[in-house]
């Protein structure tokens, strides 16, 4: 198995894809469409969406620990803004977040 180069590195903002899936997957519903930050690359693992149907789980997926601000996930979160949630998400569920281009100061 050739090892692929990770698409993301620690510190990169990423969004969890908001797609629907018919079968087994490990990207939780409550994170889909939400933006977090990669805090660690965790190595590569066989793809659970294929392993679930007894296929070999290839290509292997690079796994990332992604950190989300709780106040971003839940509009009515009761704890302080410093609280976070981390989840482990495979690369095929992540998309890059392009920082919003600053609007020119022209009035």
């Amino acid at each position, binding site marked *: 198995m050739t090892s692929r180069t990770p698409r993301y590195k620690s510190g990169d903002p990423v969004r969890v894809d908001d797609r629907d899936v018919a079968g087994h997957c490990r990207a939780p519903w409550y994170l889909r469409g939400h933006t977090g930050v990669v805090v660690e690359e965790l190595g590569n693992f066989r793809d659970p969406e294929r392993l679930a149907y007894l296929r070999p789980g290839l290509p292997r997926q690079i796994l990332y620990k992604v950190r989300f601000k709780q106040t971003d996930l839940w509009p009515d979160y009761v704890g302080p803004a410093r609280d976070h949630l981390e989840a482990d998400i*495979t690369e095929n569920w992540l998309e890059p977040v392009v920082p919003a281009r600053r609007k020119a100061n022209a009035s």
Partner: protein
Amino acid sequence: MTHTHPHTHGHGDHGHDHDHDHNEPHPPQRDHDAGPMGVYEVMEEAVRLLLLEKGVLTDAEIATQIDLMDSRSPALGAKVVARAWADAAFKQRLLADCRTALAELQIDIGQIAEFKVVENTPQTHNVIVCTLCSCYPKLLLGIPPAWYKSLGYRSRTVVDPRGVLAEFGVKIPKSQEVRVHDSTADLRYIVLPMRPKGTERMSEPQLAALVSRDAMIGTALPSVPRKT
């Protein structure tokens, strides 16, 4: 661990009547073999007998696997925590590469998952959940408690961790971050609690006695030693 009647679990079909036959003579079997069976208990016996008949599994394999799981327990996890508290170099190895550090203590975590230790600090309190199933570091801590697998814990810990922790009697000040880890993939998480103050002269076994299972899930703090 509290020890209660085994029939309080796993029989959604017939309720939880502990006292069903206390006035009846017991047949000459172990106590828990005398009560009513659940349909899944019947299924277990039937499937097991078929697998044994066909040579798919052997009694010895099943017994060995049960013994393996029985050998993993919160006490084993507490030993690891105590070593990390007592030995800073070990702690660094444990945080960097849990599998290898546990192997130093002759703990084999198998091939199903990787383990990762997250460290509590004055700034951050960690708590572990698995919202999608009930992933848990079984090959260190043993079988998880029922509440860890409950829909209540799995659903609420991600959205209201401070509320859940308060139900467990743990109040985290707002000045400290609460960091929830949802075990969604191939890693199993263990919390390394903070070493309580006043434990500087304690031996590793004394330290281990302060560490509960829940402290390694993040739903409890280590016991504070009594002043002597």
